[in-house]
């Protein structure tokens, strides 16, 4: 059970009802309940805004208009979505085998840092340097998760702690590079590295969105295909379902865990390189990742590790964040905006629970007690 489902279950324990896990999760219902959760949360937000004397209709209109009413808004959402989608896809991949990579922010930063290193030191045709930057970023992202992956795969060390803590190490390395060895001496208050003089080609017709936008879409398609049609995908899902059973079935569980974790790091690392083509992000400073890894993690968790769900959820969260930036310029306090984010994400999480559980009356559910008990005793992935 997710923490939120446990809370919901605890709340229900004083009522004649209880949560019961659905045997099958229907993809359409899963999507609809999440959307329903988001819409319900926005209604709650609207009521709260009205109660505190704010014009909720004006605020929602401003948000919608800012995002969908103009090309700049749509591009702004796309720019915000690219790094979130990349980290989210990496996390979603690891979640398929119930491995929790909380370190995508660090992998993202290290990927970007490696790309900066290549970009400011190599000179040559732009396309070649950009490809080398992408390769370096991918390798650096994978390298940053190598130790947690080895520790998890071969010594069963909890990856939540190891990946999380490496985020802080990565941030310190970025700060060090910006203050020290790659420092841009012309930059003062924003201590940043030197600027990478190469950016990805833009999408025709767009002002600032580059072909970076295509990368998460392609990766989502590949992952979707791998898990739909290949043995490897099936094996990973099997490990996620029950690693011991997967081992008995002859799957090289440890090696699979290692390789999948390296891939999740690689995807996040490549995301860091893509971000270097966003406007104003050609150099790295401590604020280079505006918590993209955390946002990506939320997206992956809420999407239930479904890859197309990640794309939809990532675009939604990016729109929400972009609207938040615009609303700040309209005078809405940043704290109210954070509260709105929280309520909406909680609504989606409740929608996610609604997709997997249903509420039944206790008496009627007596005979299914046995199956529920079995479920609780089944081996659980860490933190699930």
């Amino acid at each position, binding site marked *: 059970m997710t923490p939120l489902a446990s809370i919901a279950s605890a709340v229900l324990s004083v009522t004649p009802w209880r949560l019961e896990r659905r045997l099958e999760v229907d993809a359409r219902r899963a999507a609809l309940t999440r959307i329903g959760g988001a819409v319900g949360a926005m209604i709650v937000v609207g009521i709260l805004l009205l109660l505190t004397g704010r014009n909720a209709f004006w605020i929602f209109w401003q948000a919608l208009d800012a995002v969908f009413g103009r090309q*700049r808004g749509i591009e702004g959402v796309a720019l915000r979505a690219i790094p979130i989608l990349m980290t989210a896809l990496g996390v979603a991949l690891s979640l398929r085998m119930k491995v929790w990579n909380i370190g995508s922010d660090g992998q993202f930063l290290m990927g970007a840092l490696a790309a900066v290193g290549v970009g400011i030191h190599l000179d040559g045709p732009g396309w070649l340097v950009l490809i080398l930057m992408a390769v370096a970023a991918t390798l650096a992202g994978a390298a940053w998760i190598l130790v947690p992956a080895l520790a998890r795969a071969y010594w069963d060390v909890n990856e939540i702690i190891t990946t999380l803590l490496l985020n802080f190490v990565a941030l310190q390395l970025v700060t060090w590079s910006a203050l020290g060895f790659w420092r841009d001496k012309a930059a003062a208050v924003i201590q940043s590295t030197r600027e990478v*003089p190469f950016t990805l080609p833009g999408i025709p017709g767009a002002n600032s969105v580059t072909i970076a936008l295509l990368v998460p879409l392609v990766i989502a398609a590949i992952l979707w295909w791998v898990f739909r049609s290949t043995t490897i995908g099936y094996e990973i899902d099997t490990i996620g379902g029950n690693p011991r059973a997967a081992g008995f079935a002859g799957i090289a569980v440890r090696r699979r865990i290692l390789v999948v974790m390296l891939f999740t790091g690689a995807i996040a690392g490549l995301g860091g390189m893509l971000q270097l083509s966003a406007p104003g992000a*050609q150099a790295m400073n401590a604020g280079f990742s*505006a918590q993209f890894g955390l946002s990506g993690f939320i997206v992956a968790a809420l999407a239930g590790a479904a890859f197309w769900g990640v794309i939809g959820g990532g675009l939604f969260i990016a729109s929400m964040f972009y609207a938040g*930036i615009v609303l700040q310029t309209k005078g809405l306090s940043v704290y109210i905006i954070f509260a709105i984010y929280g309520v909406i994400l909680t609504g989606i999480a409740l929608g996610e629970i609604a997709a997997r559980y249903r509420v039944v009356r206790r008496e009627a559910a007596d005979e299914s007690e046995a199956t529920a008990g079995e479920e609780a005793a089944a081996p659980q992935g860490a933190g699930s």
Partner: protein
Amino acid sequence: MTDKKDDRRLILPPSATVSRRQALKMGAYGLGGIAVGGSLLAACGDDEEAAPATTAAPATTAAPTTTAGKDKIKAAWVYIGPPDDNGWTQEHDRGRLAAQAALGDRLETSFVPNIGFDAGTTETFQQLVDDGNDIIFANTEYAGLLTEVSDNAPDTKFCEINGHYYSDNLFPFYLAHEKTAYQLGVAAGHLAGNGRIGYIGAFPTATAFNDVNGLLLGARSVNPDATVETVLVSTFFDPQKAAQAANALLDAGVDFLFGVMDEPTFLQLSEEAGVWTGYWNLDFRSAAPTKYVSHFDLSEFGPFYTEQCQRVLDGTWVSQDEVWLLDTPIGDFGPNVPQDVQDAVLDAGAKLDSGELHVYAGPLNDNEGNERLAAGETIDSLGAYAIDWPVDGVSGISPVS
């Protein structure tokens, strides 16, 4: 693929001469053109050669054409902190309200607080441009995060404090405070029994260098053995980090503690430790009732903001070739500062203003032993804005170049 313009920043040389300034101006035009050309090519998504300035605007030496006056304008402020931070941003907001009061119905102001240095910052500036603001003020240096927007918004004016970028619609302004720091240093020289001064800084910028250099040189005018010990905490607003730095310096035994923090935690700790202290932004004697010395007075923001908005209203706003300097007088003294110390501080101020005394007067070495100023040479406030080295006697901060 597009090679991005690789030199987008223009740095004012330590002593800008007229001819060099002219060149800077022309350079700014050319670069503006390249910036536009570059982004056009980026949109097309091909080509390696963005650089040749074929798309550059003609590098005329005439002043930028002034737009016609307006009846009413919109101005926006982008703040790094909250407007009630008891410090830096609060003083800027006081300036905004002063401009509002002075211009009344003809000026509509707004502000966006808590804007840090991440990808969202560019979007914030863009949104303010899209909302039709005529002029936008930034209360910290946002550098590329701002110029990414200003280079593509020629009809909007920008003023960036502590900035280093000059273009047709953007120039930096700066609080010249090396004399004020010197005056506070004179007080420290008298008050710090052991001659050891502590300083809590944020980043190794001109602000910090002029703080520590002024403090040291002022203190040495009284006590030739005075030293300044610096701790940089990479933030202007983080009470925890400021408290750590303050405790470290106080435990080490400094007898005078100053800092560029936007909140008064270190003042309270100084008071508890019985150590003299002062503040950057405003009169904050309440945080250190008995050990308060003085503060840097930031009242010039109001007149500056009013004047820039007035110029936009009149259609006479023009960008500048060099950083716009604002005065930063020393504030009122705390209740326990002895009269002779007050007199010495004010006397030093009068001599600095009359030119009889200079903060930076050669021979001066930096703290790595390199000679920076030969005997007889001086640096004025404009030159001080380009200073990126600490004078000998300052520790904890290194020369940048």
